[in-house]
């Protein structure tokens, strides 16, 4: 008499790699669009042509035009540029400063570490978007300030992450061996700790990239991000809301763009996480 208990796990693996592939493809697509838009867009992204406002999709205007007659497709393409830039710079700020702080905290230990982490924890008490709004409002709206604000909020996140991971490495035996051999903390951090946490950082950076895009879209929606005439997905969405009853399609395109970009990045991040840490594969 035979009995089969449970499912065969072999099928799961196909799904796992699908995520990474789809994520990489979507991300690559958005990046490609952003790069292409630097040299070419179907129409001008900023040219106003009120005579042809709110047009339906056609050969000339692939996604139609908005209430000013601007070509939606071109606007979205240039918007991709904007989102990519925000993501890269904001995450770089977060990684650059945050990881440095976190690694320093883990290497130094003692009150420095305690103080830095309390500071990081404290910043989490202030709703990030609110503070980003504050910063942009006080410094003045605009792409640069919103990137700065979002970047500032990536710092505590990366600081905590890298400190936690670094601590786990510092207690390992091979670090002890390096210290016994006389290596200084800085060298150990750079040569041993950093490479070991690199994969974790890469995964988190990919995810934070998506978070940054969402945050920038929110700020732009509120009017605090990229200013006209430079297109941004969030602001396009805001403008479309006024015409929701007349041309609902205008509200769908920018949102889809945001979702595709962030989805791609999240899938990529999750996929990379599975690739880097095989232990996790069994857990999923």
């Amino acid at each position, binding site marked *: *008499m*035979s*009995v*089969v*208990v*449970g*499912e*065969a*796990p*072999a099928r799961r*693996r196909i799904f796992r790699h699908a995520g990474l592939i789809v994520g990489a493809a979507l991300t690559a697509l958005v990046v490609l669009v952003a790069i292409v838009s630097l040299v070419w867009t179907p129409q001008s992204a900023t040219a106003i042509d009120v005579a042809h406002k709110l047009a339906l999709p056609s050969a000339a205007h692939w996604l139609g035009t908005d209430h000013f007659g601007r070509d939606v497709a071109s606007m979205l393409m240039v918007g991709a540029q904007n989102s990519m830039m925000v993501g890269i710079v904001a995450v770089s700020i977060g990684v650059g400063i945050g990881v440095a702080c976190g690694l320093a905290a883990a290497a130094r230990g003692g009150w420095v570490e305690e103080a830095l982490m309390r500071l990081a924890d404290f910043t989490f008490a202030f709703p990030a978007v609110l503070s980003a709004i504050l910063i942009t409002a006080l410094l003045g709206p605009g792409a640069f300030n919103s990137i700065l604000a979002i970047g500032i909020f990536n710092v505590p996140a990366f600081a905590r992450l890298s400190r936690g991971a670094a601590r786990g490495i510092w207690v390992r035996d091979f670090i002890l061996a390096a210290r016994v051999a006389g290596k200084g903390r800085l060298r150990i951090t750079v040569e041993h700790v950093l490479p070991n946490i690199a994969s974790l950082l890469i995964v988190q950076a990919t995810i934070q990239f998506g978070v940054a895009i969402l945050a920038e879209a929110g700020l732009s929606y509120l009017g605090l991000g990229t200013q006209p005439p430079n297109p941004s997905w969030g602001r396009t969405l805001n403008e479309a809301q006024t015409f929701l009853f007349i041309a609902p399609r205008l509200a769908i395109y920018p949102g889809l763009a945001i979702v595709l970009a962030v989805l791609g990045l999240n899938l990529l991040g999750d996929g990379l996480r599975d690739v880097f840490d095989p232990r996790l594969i069994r857990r999923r």
Partner: protein
Amino acid sequence: MALLEVADLSMALATARGPLEVVRRIGFTLDRGRILGIVGESGSGKTMTALALIGLLPDGARATGSIRLDGRELLALPEAALCRLRGDRIAMIFQEPMTALNPLQPIGRQVAEPLRLHRDMDGSAAQAEAVRLLDRVRLPEAARISAAFPHQLSGGQRQRAMIAMALACQPDLLVADEPTTALDVTLQAQILDLLVELVEESGMALIIVSHDLGVIAETADDVLVMYGGTVVEHAPVAALLRHRAHPYTQGLFAARPRLGGGAAPLQAIPGTVPDLAALPSGCRFADRCPLAIAACNAAPPPMHEVAFGHGAACIRLDAARAGAGA
């Protein structure tokens, strides 16, 4: 009729490379009031066997053959019927008392749970019985322990609590998977004595799975020696202590360090446990066996009766007897 009759039991795990046979055609019987010891290294399939008895094989595992409890075939039972048996007719205790108890529930509640599940007892009656059970397993201040949480108990206390939990519904069969491995030596003896005492008192059958020969020798009535997913030798423990028939069992006994044995090097069995993905088609011990010949790799060796109730699966038993010198 024996309480437990296992015949032709094989188990395969589903892996990425296809099904992996972890246990191949084992069989044994167990009567009420008897203690069976299953001994083997890691990877011998002994834990799988234990899990198969209680029906808790990991997802993706497939069991074929027959396991009969009081004549009732267990492998064919639907999950709901198995749930009724578990904790009631068959109970199991596990290796790590630290992690085997729910950290958020008081001990008494966990011990009383089988009573609520199978005997339909209400809260207070079950609680009272739980205290009595904790007392029976020699936990002092049973009432206080009943209200305590697992993290407030020591390892030995937790294992006793696990035993109390297993005994709650007076099972016919108790399976203990490495019950003392995580405990230190003095506690080991106490727990084993407790188990033997409980068997004598209640007449239930006990299966102890262990890699520790000493534990098995002290406690069991009969022994099953497993290697590479098969039974290589089975015997009453007294007989096994007198004379080992199978080359693996001989190697196992010879490998034990002896107190006061001088500075003689430990006799290890060369080689390693077979990779389950690349199992030989013949005798699984052949590549490590000092007595192996070509025929050993041809087919799995049949079980030979060495003496009454004592069997070994080997075609080189005569050579083994000569080598061992009894």
